[in-house]
């Protein structure tokens, strides 16, 4: 039955070569920790993606209860943390996961750097990786404001002041970030929009590029 359904789809869309390419490609021995234990350093990139996946999932569930306006934001986070069933665990995953993404991504970057995997012909994938790093930092900056507690508010206030002190374009950047001259209702609304719409879109595109390039260029050979 399943086979029949698959064949029906395959006949029309020819999907077999797509997943066959991913499934059948050979993984070299030097990245396989089951053959050589020290190859675990090649897992950091995959683990970063795993944490990003849990961030997306926990974030989707948090969005069901979070309210992005200044009168209710803090109370909705308080409800998620204190009363909602497993709310503390889901928020905990999102909170600690944010730090874990940074740590794993940093380790992945060190691995790529010290194995010289960014060298020709893989320069572009390094650049995309650096861009992913900046997108993740932007996730951190915008997400930090959303609980609307004291440390969130004042960190954003100082962060935007620093942005505002940049010569010439500073005031424009500050207004773009805050939506007005001070951290307030507009800031929270746009940080929320950036955090859950703009940045995920950018991240998914960059991750797709990152993975497609790995597939077409293969993993760099052993040292």
């Amino acid at each position: 039955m399943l086979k029949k359904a698959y064949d029906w789809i395959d006949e029309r869309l020819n999907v077999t070569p797509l997943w066959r390419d991913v499934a059948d490609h050979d993984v070299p021995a030097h990245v396989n920790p089951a053959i050589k234990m020290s190859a675990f350093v090649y897992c950091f990139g995959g683990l970063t993606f795993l944490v990003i996946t849990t961030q997306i999932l926990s974030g989707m569930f948090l969005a069901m209860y979070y309210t992005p306006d200044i009168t209710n934001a803090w109370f909705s986070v308080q409800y998620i943390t204190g009363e909602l069933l497993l709310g503390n665990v889901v928020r905990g995953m999102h909170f600690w996961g944010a730090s874990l993404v940074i740590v794993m991504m940093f380790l992945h970057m060190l691995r790529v750097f010290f194995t010289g995997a960014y060298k020709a012909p893989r320069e572009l994938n390094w650049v995309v990786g650096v861009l992913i790093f900046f997108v993740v930092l932007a996730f951190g900056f915008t997400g930090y404001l959303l609980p609307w507690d004291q440390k969130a508010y004042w960190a954003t206030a100082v962060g935007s002041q620093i942005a505002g002190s940049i010569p010439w374009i500073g005031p424009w950047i500050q207004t773009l970030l805050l939506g007005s001259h001070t951290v307030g209702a507009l800031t929270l609304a746009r940080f929320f929009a950036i955090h859950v719409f703009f940045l995920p879109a950018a991240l998914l595109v960059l991750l797709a590029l990152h993975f497609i390039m790995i597939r077409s260029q293969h993993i760099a050979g052993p040292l």
Partner: protein
Amino acid sequence: MSGGERIPGTPRYRHHLQKNPGTEPFFPNFLLKEWIVGAVFLLGFMLWVVFNPVTLGDRANPDDTSFIPVPDWYFLFLYQILKYYPGPDIVFGTVLVPFIGTCLLIFVPWLDTSKDRHPYKRPLATLGMVLTTFLVIWLTNEAAVQHRAEVASASGQPSAGLPVLPRKDPSQIQFIDTSDPGYKLFEQTCANCHGAKGQGNIGPAIYAIGKYWDASKLEDFIQHPAGAMPPMGTLSNLTQVKEVASWLAKQKG
């Protein structure tokens, strides 16, 4: 050759000595192993999450300028750089250093163009990255240490549960309602440790404590204080505690 994990007559730990230790297909062989790594990793992550419950601070209060701001830990190294370029030099910390760092990071493949990949064979790149890593870790730690010290020195002495008031010159503190009997008691007793103006001395600063705690909370704290403060301070009875607490509650800074 696929299924490299099964080379007859060779224990797994010697596979890398073989001429062709064996590649294996991504699916399902390699992916299953990756999932095992991922599952162990997720288990560790979930245990961490469960045993380190996330907290929520006080609700944002734009009027409370005494709060000492600090960014999330992964921005601390950038925050720390700013402190080394005070005044008009701030542009070094806000633009120049981060911009140069970003450019170096993005253009690494065009800066290190040798064919050699082994880290020992390109000492300059390796040394640069090792030093940068240590510098980032050191800056992060330095910022965290300085922030902790700043929070601790904001009051005379940090005390569990007590709101931390910023350090303020006694001449800048104006008490409200100094005809209140609570003030007379404050002068005779509390001021010995907390300073004549409540600016903090042996005990922490309490000059604007009424902004955070009401009279009943203050009464409760004076009777069951934290840190080195004796129960009821040096007040002799509950009536005095009530008088001092109701006067202190009016001091909103």
